[in-house]
């Protein structure tokens, strides 16, 4: 559990983070979004004391980090730096092995772990492990950075735009894999991004910052899209937020129409209750049908029509 | 007159006293010291300017024909390794016993550093800036003078600082052909065990170098206002 209380940071009198209160539950993935220069990276770095706050208290698992030995503190926190920061003089495998070796693990163990993690981020250790960082593309380097941060299996992960340099197709794949991984491993993650779509996709909660380091809203993605607290957040979240909600709104019994009188053939493809509206709509378009069957476990519970989708969307927007 | 002063008591710089630092010496020989310093300054500046004038076309040549680059650098490095002790006497048959001998010799030494300064400076100009200039329709000459040279300036000046400061020291070797500026005093001081003279001249050398160095830094700041509050 990470808790920031009244944290501010000034650089030469200029406020960069302002009176920030933020709590990240154990196992939770929180995304920080906001325009460039709004203090996202600074906030992240205060958590592992790469930057010292001007005022305020930061606790991890109830312990004030300002009283912790920074070197020990950081070993328990994985950190993916925005500029990637691989060690140019070490091969890819060695880069990933660094932290386990710092911990005093054996070379063999560290190497096995490194290979495992490289595979995880989609880089074949055979093919890439013995290269130097400059022999990789920007996106590949960034994935190595993520693998390196995961290598020591730290309970807390800080990630600063971890997928920024990856091209869109691979990014989408990595995001999905990372989401699965995170749910599996249950790490506490703070992830910085300026891509609202990424934040909505990955975050359990999303913190929206404004210029000058003000926290505008801290809420679940659904909440954020449905009820931005002010015009500023609404603009940032985007004009398409209504449509973006398709991907976060889940199908509920009340959106459905009864299953009676519908031919079995028309139900050929179904989605489960709890799937997103986006999935349902995509299925309708794919099948060129104006409806899709919805199942709850083994049984049909109703059908969803375009009107139902719309109804669900409208409902989700209401306060 | 020094004659009378010497008659009264030995000055602090007479061979019998021979102090390392002696104000009386500076006072008595003021004219010599000023003349030597002036000559030193003139030779140093002339040599660096000569180095610049030679280095510029060489650097352009090396850029134009990359194959020549290794040759240009190799030859200038080769010249650099000739001991100055030998270079100046070697030049005398061609250039005579004149300041030109020293200026040419030292200009050749400065050349090595300056050619690299030009090349590295031009190389330090970001590719994207050059590409956009070309893309906007800059011809080669305009590109060189309006974009590449101004942007090469910080690196070039760094090289000029090294060249200038080293040349200040090397000018002293010019005493071999009687045009060494402060080197004449140093050499005289060494030969006569004239400590005050030796130390005064050596200190002046360093001061001269500091002065020229500061001058170059100030010049660079004036010429490159855009680097002043460089963003981090």
């Amino acid at each position, binding site marked *: 559990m990470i808790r920031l209380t009244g944290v501010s940071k000034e650089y030469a009198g200029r406020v960069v983070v302002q009176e920030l209160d933020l709590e990240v539950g154990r196992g939770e993935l929180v995304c920080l979004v906001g325009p460039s220069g709004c203090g996202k990276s600074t906030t992240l770095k205060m958590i592992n004391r790469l930057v010292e706050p001007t005022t305020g208290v930061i606790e991890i698992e109830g312990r004030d980090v300002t009283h912790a030995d920074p070197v020990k503190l950081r070993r328990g926190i994985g950190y993916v730096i925005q500029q990637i920061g691989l060690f140019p003089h070490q091969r890819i495998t060695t880069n990933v092995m660094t932290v386990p070796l710092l911990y005093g693990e054996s070379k063999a163990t560290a190497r096995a772990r490194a290979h495992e993690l490289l595979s995880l981020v989609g880089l074949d250790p055979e093919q890439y492990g013995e290269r130097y960082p400059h022999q990789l593309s920007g996106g590949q380097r960034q994935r190595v950075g993520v693998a390196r941060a995961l290598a020591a299996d730290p309970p807390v992960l800080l990630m600063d735009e971890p997928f920024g340099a990856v091209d869109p197709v691979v990014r989408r794949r990595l995001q999905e894999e990372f989401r699965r991984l995170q749910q599996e491993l249950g790490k506490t993650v703070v992830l910085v991004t300026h891509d609202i779509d990424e934040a909505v996709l990955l975050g359990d909660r999303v913190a929206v910052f404004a210029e000058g380091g003000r926290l505008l809203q801290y809420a679940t993605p659904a909440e954020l899209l449905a009820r931005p607290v002010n015009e500023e957040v609404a603009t940032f979240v985007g004009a398409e937020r209504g449509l973006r909600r398709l991907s976060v709104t889940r199908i509920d019994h009340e959106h459905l129409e009864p299953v009676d009188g519908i031919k079995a053939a028309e139900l050929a493809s179904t989605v489960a209750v709890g799937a997103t509206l986006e999935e349902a709509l995509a299925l309708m378009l794919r099948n060129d049908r104006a409806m899709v069957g919805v199942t709850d476990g083994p049984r049909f519970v109703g059908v969803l029509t375009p009107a139902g989708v719309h109804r669900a969307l409208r409902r989700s927007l209401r306060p | 007159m020094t*004659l009378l002063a010497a008659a009264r008591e030995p000055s602090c710089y007479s061979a019998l006293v021979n102090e390392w630092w002696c104000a009386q010496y500076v006072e008595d020989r003021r004219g010599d010291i000023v003349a030597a310093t002036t000559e030193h300054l003139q030779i140093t500046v002339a040599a660096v300017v000569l180095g610049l004038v030679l280095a510029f076309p060489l650097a352009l040549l090396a850029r134009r024909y990359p194959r020549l680059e290794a040759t240009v650098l190799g030859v200038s490095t080769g010249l650099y390794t000739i001991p100055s002790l030998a270079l100046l006497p070697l030049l005398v048959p061609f250039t005579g016993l004149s300041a030109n001998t020293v200026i040419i010799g030292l200009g050749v030494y400065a050349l090595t550093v300056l050619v690299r300064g030009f090349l590295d400076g031009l190389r330090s100009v970001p590719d994207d800036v050059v590409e956009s200039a070309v893309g906007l329709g800059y011809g080669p000459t305009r590109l060189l003078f309006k974009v590449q040279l101004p942007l090469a300036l910080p690196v070039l000046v760094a090289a000029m600082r090294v060249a200038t400061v080293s040349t200040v020291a090397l000018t002293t070797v010019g005493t071999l052909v009687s045009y060494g500026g402060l080197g004449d005093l140093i050499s005289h001081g060494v*030969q*006569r065990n004239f400590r005050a003279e030796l130390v005064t001249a050596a200190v002046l050398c360093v001061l001269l170098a500091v002065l020229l160095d500061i001058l170059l830094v100030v010049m660079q700041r004036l010429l490159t206002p855009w680097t002043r509050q460089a963003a981090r």
Partner: protein
Amino acid sequence: GDDLAEDDDSKDAGSGGGGKVVLASQSFDEAALVTAMYAALLDEAGYEVETKLVDSRPNYLGEFPGSVDIVPEYVAGLGDQLNTDANGENAEPISSSDLDATLEAMQPLLEDKGLTLLEPSEAASQNAYFVTQEYSEDNGVTRLSDLEGESIKLAAHPDCAGRDDCEAGLTEVYGIDIELLPLGYASPQTYQSVLDGESQLGQTGTLDGTLDDQGLVLLEDDRGIQPAQNLVPAVSVAFLEEHPDVEEPLNELMAALDNATLGELIVRVTVDRETPEDVAEDFLEQEGLLD
């Protein structure tokens, strides 16, 4: 740096008195002092004088005659240099301890080069070798021949190597086994080296007036290896033709100089560190050569 380079044209400005004259010489104290005397006299005669002091003779000889007009020279030194220049590095020396023979032998070389010598002075600055008083007493050494058969370290100018009035003469004529330390002619390092016992023998000139005070004594050149190093003005023939008026004052100077006087004057330069110019002027005024 243009103002540093001499302007060759202005030399021809006038014949007789006036115009520009370039003196060159070596930079050790004695040469500098004599050069200062030349300069003062020529200045008095209305010339604009430029002086170039260099480390060693070859450095100006290439320019003489040419951009250099007059050089305060030493007879044998100049003769031998001209000889090696003309006949190769290993040519047989032409100088000897006989002044007239030496002058005669070098005459053709001077002509070839376009030089002429004015009247030589009786003052002669020959190489001389010293030991410490202590060494002299302990080993009973007062003449160079007393060192025959000894192994000796000699502190001397680097050009000593192979010279008949130095290393070669000491080895061949005196039979001394010489190891050369190139520390300079009458340089502080040379004195220091002998005083420290690093070397036993040091090189200086016959005019050296500082030896006594330092506890050093000269050894007699009893086998006469020193050539006739009389002071003499060497002048470019062409220059002399245009400016015949330089001859008289320089000849007067040569006549006024002798070893004892010169020795005293040199001490004022080396020990009291008066400038050669001051000492020269002082002396010339005393002698009535200068008002």
